[in-house]
């Protein structure tokens, strides 16, 4: 039965891996079993998921930010575009 008993160090790695792929059943069971007893690993998991949710949200909804291209940048890009077009002709 010991093959699905994992240490905190192993669990920390499995928790991360479970965020990247579906783990085989015995590993999922091992995580569940460990988490029932270990408050620190429960915390660790919750915090990883929290950081992910913040970043995913940020990656998806940059519309919220009010930044825009500066006039300088706009002009520089425009110049470069025109230069490129000139070269193509």
């Amino acid at each position, binding site marked *: 039965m010991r093959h699905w008993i994992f240490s905190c160090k192993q669990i920390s790695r499995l928790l991360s891996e479970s965020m990247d792929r579906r783990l085989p059943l015995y590993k999922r069971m091992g995580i569940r079993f460990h988490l029932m007893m270990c408050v620190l690993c429960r915390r660790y998991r919750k*915090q990883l998921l929290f950081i992910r949710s913040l970043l995913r949200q*940020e*990656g998806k909804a940059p519309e919220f930010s009010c930044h825009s291209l500066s006039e300088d940048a706009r002009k520089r890009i425009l110049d470069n575009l025109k230069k490129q077009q000139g070269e193509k002709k």
Partner: protein
Amino acid sequence: MGTRDNNEHEAVQWLDLYGDALYRFALVRVRHSFAAEDLVQETLLAGYCSYKNFSGKSSVKTWLFGILKHKVMDYYRKLPPEQGDENLDEFAATLETMFDAREKWKIQPGSWGNDPQNAYQQKELLAVIFACMDELPHRLSGMYRMRELEGATTGEICDRYQTKKSNCWVILHRARMLLRRCLEINWFDQAAKGK
């Protein structure tokens, strides 16, 4: 959408129409205004040069964002290599100290209390997260950003970095461990002291 012949016009129009949106998208990801501006420029130039290959199946906007996405991922990947190995050693040491010989937590994850509720706090917190990402070894940071910000699959990430999947998972694990610790030290511990 105009005809393919007058695409020079269009490239200039794209700047007006989508420039700001592209810029915001890039800025959120690279955090430096100059780098973001360069990415917008590269995207428009690439769009201009490959417009003849544009199938027209999606909107021009979607197509341009697709180009930008790839440019951003290349930006992560091409972050300059670290100065010497000192950094890497330091990070390896940090990872080692997290657990004791019996593989139990030595540096225990602290209680973070309530997740930050309001938008202002979240913004501050994100700033710390990004600062922490910049501190990570670049390879870790790049792969981590692709995964968590872009939602790229490990398959896509491995392709870009030409590494095995099992290696990807280990690297992402290290990045998460280090980033969480950095955030704890620089945000939650500070907040606790402030109380």
